[in-house]
């Protein structure tokens, strides 16, 4: 049997995959990035490339209901002075559980951008800017406990 014939079964394999993973907690991924080169005394921008698996969403940074846990980036250490964090533009989506009322979410691939200032007295050379990204994800029928993932960006101060 050739793979061309096997391709007929791809939807079946996908169905099996969906059946087996439907209740597994989704993992938010932050793409690894190249060293961010910055200059002392100058502004700097760090863009986190974030993604959630298909079929899942997380609350945006500005959820529509007070009980919902927002997407939150916190910088906890490193040579850079934190400025403004810009979260992705929320999607207003309705789900089986929202009874027709849209809620503010993020899904798929999105960026979280932080503006920094590099202190004039920052030590030159490589170092790490660290933080955490907290999110709480759901699909159309169920929700998963909030998770906090570490963020680690290599910064080279020149």
């Amino acid at each position, binding site marked *: *049997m*050739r*793979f061309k*014939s*096997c391709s007929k*079964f791809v939807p*079946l394999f996908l*169905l*099996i995959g969906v*059946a*087996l993973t*439907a*209740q597994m*907690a989704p993992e938010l991924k932050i793409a690894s990035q190249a060293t961010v080169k910055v200059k002392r005394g100058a502004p700097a921008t760090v863009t986190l490339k974030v993604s959630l698996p298909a079929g899942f969403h997380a609350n945006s940074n500005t959820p529509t*209901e007070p*009980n*919902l*846990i927002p997407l939150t980036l916190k910088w906890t250490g490193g040579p850079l002075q934190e400025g403004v964090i810009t979260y992705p533009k929320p999607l207003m989506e309705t*789900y*089986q*559980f*929202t*009874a027709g009322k849209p*809620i503010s979410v993020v899904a798929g691939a999105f960026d979280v951008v932080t503006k920094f200032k590099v202190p004039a007295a920052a030590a030159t050379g490589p170092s790490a800017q660290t933080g955490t990204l907290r999110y*709480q994800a*759901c699909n159309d*029928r*169920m*929700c*998963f*406990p*909030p998770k906090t993932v570490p963020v680690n960006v290599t910064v080279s101060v020149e």
Partner: protein
Amino acid sequence: MNFSPHSVQPGRFFILLAVIAGVAVTLGSIGWPDKPSANVGSPVKDGKVRKQAPDFELKDVNGKVVRLSDYKGKVVLLDFWATWCGPCGIEIPWFTEFQRKYKDRGFTVLGVSMDDGGWKDVKPFVAEQKINYQIVLGDDKTSDQYGDVEALPTTFVIDREGRIASVHVGLADKKEFDDAIQKLL
């Protein structure tokens, strides 16, 4: 035996796939052994195959210890939920209605909150939702006892002998719960 698609005849390969699909769909719908079901609602199991619901000790808002075994002799709807869980918020008014409707017939709802924030998050929510049944704060141990409850809501309908009669993972159907309760009362 080689399962390579190149070495298996088309007919056999299809049968193999059908078997794999059958197993996957079955596991997806009835759940792995000792794990909560993945589907909207499992049917009420025959009494002979029901497993004993693990007992636990959890605290209510006043710090009083509540055990599942305290409810032996009653049909219990055991709901794992959280304030941040949208689908849980849809089911809670159903459970409040069931509590009102069936409490005099030997039925109760027991809500296990999985909120990390504890009572400071749960207490206002309970008041706002006018929840009329017992709420306790859950913990990892209890979650593990019930098959590592991670997806919320996850709801177990427990018979008068303390055995799990049906499991519902995710937003379920109100009528399925109602039917299960009535069948067990």
